[in-house]
């Protein structure tokens, strides 16, 4: 979802999203291990860390666009992936870090959130909150401006918008949410490791968004669910499952370039249009 804000609406194709996911994950893990923070502080530090980090990376990356933006985000991402591997004494290297998650204290309540049920609900609550915030953002005046910039940057500039600032804002918001997702991962699996920061994960995010439908709010969620289930199923049948993933992608781009949600939306709209036509005549 966070990715879709940047790519689907603002038109920035980034291959570095795993970077922010990883930043959030490590930020969360470091807060627990090195700061011995309680969960509230760990989450706060994660949010601040991810926001600051994505702003800094954004300042570098948004200067260029198109394929250059893609390459820059990819390079920065790979650099940090390599860094996570190269300093095992800090980051646990390729083995990652096993986390001991403290209880979540809320006044006198103390909640063991490693309990699968609690954890499951917590993830759902956060997903719902993120969904509401991003949905709200996309339909806000800011969201419309971001869409406008994605569709016609020059026009937006001549209307008086400082396009670079808006790109940076989209980048930061998107990076922060990805960071939050990273901390959720660390929390659920009690683990922080570099595998999820790899280029493959970034490409996966892009694929899921494309399959579900970019520039739709539900698209990334649908795409992720469909692709993860499909990959799980296919990989249990054959080890050459990546071929099928490629096949799905080709079919989607060929027959439903707007993704699953986008295509359904178009169908619905065209039927309601034809109803209107009949009503008018």
């Amino acid at each position, binding site marked *: 979802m966070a990715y879709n804000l940047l790519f689907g609406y603002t038109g920035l194709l980034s291959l570095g999203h795993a970077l922010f996911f990883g930043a959030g994950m490590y930020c969360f893990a470091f807060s627990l291990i090195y700061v011995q923070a309680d969960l509230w502080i760990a989450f706060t530090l994660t949010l601040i860390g991810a926001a600051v980090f994505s702003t800094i990376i954004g300042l570098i990356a948004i200067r260029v666009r198109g394929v250059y933006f893609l390459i820059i985000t990819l390079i920065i991402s790979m650099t940090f992936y390599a860094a996570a591997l190269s300093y095992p004494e800090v980051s646990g290297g390729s083995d990652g870090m096993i986390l001991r998650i403290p209880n979540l204290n809320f006044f006198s309540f103390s909640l063991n959130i490693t309990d699968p049920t609690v954890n499951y609900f917590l993830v759902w609550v956060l997903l719902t909150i993120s969904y509401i915030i991003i949905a709200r953002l996309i339909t806000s005046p800011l969201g419309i401006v971001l869409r406008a910039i994605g569709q016609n940057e020059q026009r937006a*500039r*001549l209307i008086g918008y400082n396009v670079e600032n808006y790109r940076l804002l989209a980048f930061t918001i998107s990076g922060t949410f990805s960071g939050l997702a990273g901390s959720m991962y660390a929390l659920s699996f009690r683990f922080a490791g570099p595998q999820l920061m790899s280029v493959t994960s970034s490409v996966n995010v892009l694929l899921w968004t494309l399959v579900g439908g970019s520039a739709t709010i539900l698209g990334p969620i649908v795409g992720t669910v469909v692709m993860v289930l499909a990959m799980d199923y296919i990989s249990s049948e054959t080890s050459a499952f990546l071929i099928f993933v490629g096949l799905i992608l080709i079919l989607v781009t060929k027959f439903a370039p707007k993704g699953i949600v986008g295509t359904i939306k178009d169908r619905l709209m065209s039927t309601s249009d034809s109803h209107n036509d009949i009503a008018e005549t």
Partner: protein
Amino acid sequence: MILQKHSPALLHTLGLTKKFGGLTAVDGVEFKLPEGELRAVVGPNGAGKTTFVNLIVGLLRSDRGQIFFAGNDITSKPPHVRSRIGIGYTFQLTSVFPRLSVFENVRIPVQSRTLRMFEYFGSVSNDRVEAKIKSVLHQVGLEGCTAAQADSLAHGDQRKLELAIAIALEPRLLILDEPTQGMSERDVKETIGLIRMISRNKTILIIEHNMDVVLDLAERITVFDKGRIIAEGTSSEIEQDQNVIDSYLGAEWRGR
């Protein structure tokens, strides 16, 4: 440059020059446009008219020369700043937001002029903004298709939307680059009427190929050829000018 501060011209260019490789598209142009005037810029294809206005709005950077707007040197200002201080522009080739609705297309410039920073995170429903959008759409005659996606509009309606976006900016100087290009005769008439109405309280610079439109509309005309201004004056002065007849209007113009 102290003198320029007191110049009554809203727009003033000094020695403005732009080269593309070996071609000098705009060649040392001195141009003055007083506030309140409706001025047409004409000239043959490749005379440098569009390059000239692109330098003014900031889409291109000049190689030499200066641009003053309301007495301030804006030569090195980026386009979004020029837009904010009051220069509005309509593109020669329609440049709207293709996958936004007509209403949203006009919302973008209205927001840019009415919302403060924090309001961008708030709700989209804002009576002030919506009233303004409606009035602009009514002005250009697009009130009937506010929900349509911009790229589904007919060419003439897209031109009107282009104009609507610029009007919604409430610029001090409105630059129109061939606003009637490709329009049907009826739409051309409507658009001319609209431009005339807007010009009552705005400064307008219009680039136009259609000489009938120009002679009908403009108070004064500036003629470009090969990147230079070759004549400037009222329509009757321009029609008589031998230089202009030779390079642009052609011999048969005399006979009309």
